């Protein structure tokens, strides 16, 4: 089923990440062209470009107040950007290899990053310091996420496992095994009780956070699943894949609700707008697409 395209936002190279500001008025896209671009949601107008990273930018998050943006890059650093001036306020260094993922806690006071040095690092962006180094993965770390209450960090990677860490003391709380391929994406449900994971084995798995039990495996993508994200209500799950589609699922039943076509290459990231009416997807095809998800915009596939 098709979804209506609101905007197509382009970079000079693959787009690795897209995210909305907390007020939904802006988007940020992060690219292998080493930049982050800011866009106006209502018009799709390009507002500015943040330049400074020395390699591809793998993730970005608006701080809750919308005045600052955090980014992580293959250049092994994270940056804190002042969005008024476009200048880098702080550079966070510590990883010894390509950083591949980053997440921000809901209060914006902590960052988590994962890298090809097999580490997960927690950071205080206000000081630029590492607060915890979480070691244990036996392969590259590919994805990280904070639980909504900020007490847990989930990470996944090439060792096919998902690890749940205490953000307070850095202890490994639980290790989730079951995927038969690298874990490429993780996301907590808004109530913090469920975790979704996307994998190179072509499946999405849903886990019970408290017990670590696997609840469901969602099958439908025809290739590696690269990313997964719950909407703000917890009633829908979006995923992106090497098969170039974005799929929308009902996490309670595991049923596929929509399969959205439009990208020409792997979908690297998906993000719901704060009002859940819109979805943005980032792709290796050098574009981010902003899709309308309202019922009236659901059209039969052509």
């Amino acid at each position, binding site marked *: 089923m098709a979804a209506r395209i609101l905007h197509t936002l382009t970079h000079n190279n*693959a787009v690795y990440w897209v995210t909305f500001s907390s007020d939904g008025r802006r988007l940020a896209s992060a690219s292998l062209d080493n930049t982050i671009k800011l866009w106006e949601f209502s018009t799709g107008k390009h507002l500015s470009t943040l330049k400074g990273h020395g390699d*591809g930018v793998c993730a970005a998050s608006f701080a809750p107040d919308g005045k600052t943006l955090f980014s992580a890059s*293959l250049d092994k650093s994270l940056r804190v950007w002042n969005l008024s001036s476009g200048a880098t306020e702080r550079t966070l260094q510590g990883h010894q290899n390509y950083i591949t993922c980053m997440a921000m806690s809901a209060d914006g006071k902590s960052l988590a990053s994962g890298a*090809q040095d097999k580490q997960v690092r927690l950071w205080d962006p206000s000081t630029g310091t590492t607060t915890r180094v979480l070691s244990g993965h036996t392969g590259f770390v590919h994805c990280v996420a904070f639980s909504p209450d900020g007490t847990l960090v989930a990470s996944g990677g090439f060792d096919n496992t998902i690890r749940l860490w205490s953000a307070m003391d850095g202890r490994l709380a639980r290790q989730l095994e079951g995927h038969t391929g690298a874990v490429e994406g993780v996301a907590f449900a808004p109530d913090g009780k469920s975790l979704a994971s996307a994998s190179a084995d072509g499946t999405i798995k849903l886990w019970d956070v408290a017990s670590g039990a696997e609840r469901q495996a969602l099958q439908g993508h025809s290739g590696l699943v690269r990313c997964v994200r719950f909407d703000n209500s917890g009633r829908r799950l979006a995923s992106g894949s090497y098969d170039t589609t974005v799929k929308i699922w009902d996490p309670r039943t595991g049923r596929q609700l929509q399969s959205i076509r439009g990208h*020409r*290459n792997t979908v690297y990231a998906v993000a719901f707008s704060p009002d859940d009416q819109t979805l943005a997807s980032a792709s*290796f*095809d050098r574009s981010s697409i902003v899709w309308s998800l309202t019922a009236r915009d659901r059209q039969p596939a052509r």
Partner: protein
Amino acid sequence: MINIPGPASKFCDGVSRRSFLRLGGLAMGGLTLPDLLRAEQAAGRSRSNKSLIMVFLSGGAPHQDMYDIKTEAPLEYRGEFQPIDTNVSGIQICEHLPRLAQMMDRLVPIRSVVGSEGRHAAFQCLTGQSVRSQPPGGWPSLGSVVSKLKGPVDPAVPPFVSLSPQMKSRTWSDPGQPGYCGMAHAPFTPNASGTADLELRGINHRTLQNRRKLIAQIGRLRHELDRNDVIDGMDTYYRQAFGILTSGKLMEALDLEREDPAVRDRYGRGSAEPAGYGDAGPLMNDYLLTARRLVEAGVRVVSLAYGRWDWHGQPHGTNFENARDHLPVFDQGVSTLIEDLHERGLSDDVSVVVWGEFGRTPKINPKGGRDHWPRVSSALLACGGIRTGQVIGSTNRLGEHAETRPVHFQEIMATLYRNLGIDVDATTINDLTGRPQYLIDHVHHGPLPEVV
């Protein structure tokens, strides 16, 4: 450096004594254009319009993901792409090259190129030689050889042009070294750093974006200089240099704003930005169109770096993600170039070669990429009056080595020289010690009998 002096104590009308036109080298290997012209004058030249467009796929394209899908290999070798039929029965190529598939009767994929020295460099594609044990002066690139032996078709048009931009990797952006042919035969490189020094009074290099305006201003300037008898004071070679710069022929060929926008769209335009992460050639189909315009204008050899094909895998995208990014653009650009040459009646006179420095590892690595594999690679030939609609050579089941008809780099070079009217068995050029050097190892390698 060209300095156009004005009258001793006063400004010319509209022209000051200050140099108004400084070309930082015109990227001719540091020689000024007048010096170049003097050197060319030193030898008589024959004239013919055989020409070559060489497309260098910087980084080493995956041979098994383009023209040689290994359908019988396990998935971890074969990869993710399917083969498609072409318009020649029995030949299949990658599903992401549908346009080239529909013109296979005009192409010669070579699946078994051997002899790579394994360096990330354009040198071997440009010269056919290894960097090791070079003769005094160094091996010249094919374009420099042609420049020396054939000279320009038109005095206003350099015989050898490279459209490669300057990249951080000098070996990738190598436009073609003149070697022992001498600096006079270095290529003109309009996309390299020389154009940054191009300044006209009131115009700077940014104005090259609007070449029409530039040409009009040159025209007004020339008129002013003529009025003030400045040109008469220049020696022959300055006049010739000035003629090249102001005759318009070269600049018109470079000026794509003069081209039908529909033709530019057909080629696919592209972006001058580096194609891949970090350092790379551009996926600039406009350069393929420019190459066609240049050979029409009389350039004998045009080389250009195209894309970044060095796909080692994550975190810079897998081999297959990068291929899905590059191949459609490549397919559109190269197929359109070849069609265009045929439509314009140039296909017998203009040879096209598309190749890179090596192939890529048969087994996909854990990061979803392929690494360097000098043991075998692929190339594509078209036009130039060769027999097309055939594949030359094959690799083994896993794509590891040439199984039938290994084709050495120098056989391809010998074929290109032959198409340009140069017999590698009979042609030598003296190196800097005066010793005659054959262009390739002609004892062991000659033009491909399958195509000539």
